[in-house]
C-alpha cells in the first residue's frame, strides 16, 4: 500500500488532464471531447478499484509533499489511501462513468457538447482530489474547485436567466458555509501547526479531540458549517432545489450522488475531531433537515424538485447516521443513496427526454406502457429510496441509521423524526410515481412519449442492479461494509437479523413504509390530474409546503436586504469618501503642478529673460559709444595712454 499511495495522484489527474485537453478542443470535435472524458474516468475507475483492492486488508498509508515555504514553515499537501477514501473513490468513479455514458445520449442534441464534458471531467477530478486528500488545505482547494464546477454546470445553459441566478445562488450559499470551514481550518492549523490529516503520528487527526474538548468542539462545528452549506442541511439548503436548472446528468452526478455527499464525507473524514457535543449538533441538524425537506417534497410538482428535496432529506439522514452511529453508518447510506438517487435522476432525465422537455408531473402519466425500461429502473430506485424491506439497499442503510438513532443515548427524538421522515418519503415517492407512470396520459407530449435510446437505458439498468445489490454488503447478518471501514472481520450470521432491537426497528420502519405507499397509492392512484387531493383537503398547509415554508422569502427579506443595504453603503463610501479623497489628492497635485509651472515661467524664465535683457540693454547702451568717428577713438586712446603713463611712473609713490 505504501507504493500504491505514491501513485494515487493519478486518479484525480486523469480527468483533470481530460478537462484541460477538452478545454482546448474546438467545439465541433464532439466524439473526441466525449471520448477523452469517458476514457479518463474509466482509467480513474480502474485505478480506484486497484486502490480499493489494496485496502481490503485495512490500514492506512499516506504520502505528502511540500508545496511552498513561507518563513520557517512550509505548507504540505498530501494523499491518503485508506478504506474510507478508497470506497468513496470507487463509488464516485463508477457513478461518474455511468452518468458520462448516459450524457452521451442525453446531451446529444446540445450545441455545447464538448464544453459539458470538459466541465464534468473537471468536476470529477476535483471530487476525486477531495476524496483522496491527506491535507485539509488540499481538501479545501478541491472543495472549492468542486463548487466552481457546480457553478459552471448549474449555469450550463447560462442564457436562461433562471439558470444563471441558480448558479449564483448555489455558489454564494455554499460560500457562506465555506467561511465557517475556513475559520475552522485556520483554528486547527493554529492549534496543531499542521494541516495534514495523517502524518505518522504528527497529523491533526492522529489523535482524537486534538486541542482539548472545547477547542475540538468549536473546530468541529466550524468545519461542519462547510458541510451544512455543501450538503444542503437546514439553513443553507435553499440552493439545491434551484440547482435543478442544470442539465439532468449534472443533477444526477453532482447534486445527488457526489458533491452534496462531500459534506458528509468531510464530517466522516474529520471524525476524530468531532466531540460528542459536536456530534449532537450534527445529529439534530440532520434529523430536522430530514423531516423538513420530506414535508416540502410532498407538495412539489416538478419531477426534479421532488428528487432534490428528497436528496436534502436523505442527506439529513446521513448526518443523523454520522452523529448517532458513526462513520460506517453514515457512509453506508451515502454509498447506497449515491446509486439509487443517481438512478432516480437519470430515470427522471429519461422521462423528460421522452416527454420532450416537460418537467411538470401533472402533465405526464401512463408512461409505464410507453417507457417500460425506464419504469422498471425507476421503480427499483423508488423502492430503494423508500426502504422497501429486504431486497433494496435503501432499507438496510436507512435501518442502520434508525437503529443507531434508537440507541442514541441523548434523546429519542431524532429516531421519531427519522420514522416520520421515512413515512413521508414513501408518501411523496409513491405520489410521484403514480403521477408520472400510472393513470391516463395527459394530453400533449405524454401521449407521444418514447423510450430512450440504449445509451441512456443501459446505465439505468446497471444502477438498478447496484441499487438492489449494494445493500447486501451492510446487513446486520453480514456487516462487511461496516467492518471494512472500521477494521475487523465481518462474520456471516443470519441470527443477527433477528436480534431484538434491530428487528423491532426493521419491522417498525417496514410498517410505516407500507402504510405510506398504500395510502399514497390510494389517494393519488385514482385521482384526477388537475387538482391535488391533499390541496383540496388542506389548502393552507399545502400552500405552505409548496412555498417551501417561505424560507427563500424570509432570506430575501432579511439577509439579502441587509446585504443589499450594506452594499449600497459601501458603494457610497467608495464613490464619495474614497473617490473624493483621491480627487482631492489629484486636485492638490494639479494645483501644485500649476504652481510649479507658474513659478517656472515667471521666476525662472522671467528671471532669465530679465537677465538677458539687462545684458543686451547694457550692450546696446555701450555700443552707442561707437559712433564710427575714428578720431574720437584715437582721442580716447591718447587720454588712456596719458593716464596709464602717469599711473605707471608715479602711481607707485601714491599707494
Amino acid at each position, binding site marked *: 500500500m505504501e507504493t500504491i499511495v505514491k501513485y494515487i495522484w493519478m486518479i484525480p489527474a486523469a480527468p483533470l488532464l481530460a478537462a484541460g485537453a477538452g478545454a482546448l478542443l474546438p467545439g465541433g470535435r464532439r466524439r473526441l471531447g466525449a471520448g477523452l472524458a469517458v476514457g479518463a474516468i474509466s482509467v480513474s475507475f480502474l485505478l480506484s478499484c486497484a486502490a480499493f483492492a489494496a485496502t481490503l486488508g485495512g490500514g492506512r498509508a499516506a504520502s505528502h509533499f511540500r508545496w511552498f515555504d513561507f518563513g520557517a514553515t512550509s505548507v504540505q499537501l498530501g494523499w491518503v489511501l485508506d478504506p474510507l477514501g478508497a470506497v468513496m473513490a470507487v463509488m464516485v468513479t463508477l457513478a461518474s462513468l455511468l452518468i458520462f455514458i448516459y450524457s452521451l445520449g442525453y446531451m446529444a442534441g446540445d450545441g455545447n457538447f464538448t464544453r459539458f464534458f470538459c466541465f464534468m471531467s473537471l468536476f470529477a477530478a476535483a471530487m476525486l482530489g477531495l476524496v483522496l486528500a491527506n491535507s485539509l488545505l488540499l481538501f479545501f482547494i478541491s472543495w472549492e474547485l468542486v463548487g466552481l464546477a457546480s457553478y459552471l454546470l448549474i449555469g450550463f445553459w447560462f442564457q436562461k436567466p433562471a439558470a444563471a441566478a441558480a448558479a449564483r445562488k448555489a455558489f454564494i450559499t455554499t460560500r457562506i458555509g465555506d467561511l465557517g470551514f475556513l475559520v475552522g481550518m485556520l483554528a486547527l492549523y493554529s492549534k496543531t501547526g499542521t494541516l495534514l490529516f495523517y502524518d505518522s503520528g504528527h497529523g491533526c487527526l492522529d489523535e482524537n479531540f486534538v486541542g482539548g474538548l472545547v477547542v475540538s468542539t468549536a473546530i468541529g462545528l466550524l468545519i461542519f458549517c462547510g458541510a451544512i452549506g455543501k450538503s444542503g442541511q437546514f439553513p443553507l439548503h435553499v440552493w439545491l432545489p434551484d440547482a435543478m436548472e442544470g442539465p439532468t446528468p449534472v443533477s444526477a452526478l453532482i447534486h445527488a450522488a457526489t458533491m452534496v455527499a462531500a459534506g458528509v464525507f468531510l464530517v466522516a473524514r474529520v471524525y476524530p475531531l468531532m466531540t460528542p457535543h459536536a456530534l449532537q449538533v450534527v445529529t439534530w441538524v440532520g434529523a430536522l433537515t430530514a423531516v423538513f425537506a420530506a414535508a416540502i417534497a410532498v407538495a412539489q410538482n416538478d419531477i426534479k424538485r421532488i428528487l432534490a428535496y428528497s436528496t436534502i432529506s436523505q442527506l439529513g439522514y446521513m448526518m443523523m447516521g454520522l452523529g448517532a452511529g458513526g462513520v460506517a453508518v453514515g457512509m453506508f447510506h451515502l454509498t447506497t443513496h449515491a446509486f439509487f438517487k443517481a438512478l432516480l435522476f437519470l430515470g427522471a432525465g429519461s422521462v423528460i427526454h421522452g416527454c420532450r422537455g416537460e418537467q411538470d408531473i401533472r402533465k405526464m402519466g401512463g408512461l409505464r406502457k410507453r417507457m417500460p425500461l425506464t419504469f422498471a429502473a425507476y421503480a427499483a430506485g423508488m423502492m430503494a429510496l423508500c426502504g422497501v424491506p429486504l431486497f433494496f439497499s435503501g432499507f438496510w442503510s436507512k435501518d442502520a441509521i434508525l437503529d443507531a438513532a434508537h440507541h442514541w443515548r441523548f434523546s429519542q427524538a431524532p429516531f421519531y423524526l427519522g420514522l416520520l421522515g421515512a413515512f413521508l418519503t414513501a408518501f411523496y415517492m409513491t405520489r410521484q410515481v403514480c403521477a408520472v407512470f400510472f393513470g391516463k396520459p395527459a394530453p400533449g407530449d405524454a401521449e407521444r412519449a418514447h423510450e430512450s435510446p440504449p445509451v441512456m437505458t443501459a446505465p439505468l439498468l446497471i444502477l438498478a442492479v447496484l441499487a438492489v445489490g449494494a445493500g447486501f454488503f451492510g446487513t446486520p447478518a453480514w456487516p462487511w461494509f461496516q467492518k471494512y471501514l472500521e477494521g475487523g472481520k465481518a462474520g456471516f450470521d443470519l441470527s443477527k437479523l433477528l436480534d431484538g432491537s434491530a428487528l423491532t426497528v426493521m419491522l417498525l420502519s417496514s410498517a410505516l413504509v407500507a402504510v405510506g405507499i398504500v395510502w399514497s397509492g390510494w389517494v393519488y392512484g385514482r385521482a384526477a390530474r388537475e387538482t391535488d387531493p391533499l390541496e383540496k383537503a388542506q389548502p393552507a398547509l399545502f400552500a405552505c409546503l409548496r412555498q417551501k415554508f417561505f424560507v427563500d422569502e424570509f432570506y430575501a427579506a432579511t439577509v439579502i436586504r441587509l446585504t443589499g443595504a450594506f452594499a449600497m453603503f459601501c458603494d457610497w463610501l467608495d464613490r464619495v469618501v474614497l473617490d473624493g479623497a483621491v480627487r482631492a489628492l489629484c486636485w492638490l497635485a494639479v494645483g501644485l503642478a500649476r504652481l510649479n509651472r507658474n513659478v517656472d515661467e515667471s521666476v525662472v524664465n522671467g528671471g532669465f529673460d530679465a537677465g538677458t535683457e539687462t545684458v543686451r540693454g547694457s550692450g546696446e547702451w555701450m555700443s552707442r*559709444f561707437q*559712433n564710427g568717428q*575714428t578720431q574720437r577713438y584715437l582721442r580716447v586712446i591718447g587720454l588712456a595712454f596719458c593716464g596709464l603713463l602717469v599711473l605707471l611712473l608715479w602711481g607707485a609713490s601714491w599707494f
Partner: protein
Amino acid sequence: MTTPLAHYLILAALLFGVGLAGALARRNAILVLVGLELMFNAANLNFIAFWRFGPRPEALTGLMFVLFSIAIGAAEAAIGLALVIAIYRHRRTAQVDRFDSLKG
C-alpha cells in the same frame, strides 16, 4: 656729442604731440595719415637716440630696428593712402567724419 639725450627725447616728444594733435584735429583723411607718419618718425628718432646713447651701440640694435620700422611705415602708408583713394572713389569724399558706417 654735447647735446644730451634729453634734448633729443624732448624733440621726439614734441614731434609726437604735433603729429597726434594734427591726426585728431584735421578733417581730411590724408592729413590724419601724415600725422601718423610724424608719430612714426618721432618713435624712430627715439630709437636712434637711445641706440646712440645706450650701453652697446656696436650691436647696432637700434639702427636695425629703425630700418625695419621705416620699411614697415612705408608699407603702411602705401596701403593707407590706397584705401583713402578707394574710399574717395566710392564716397566722393575724403573726410574722416563721413566714414562712420561702422557704428553701434
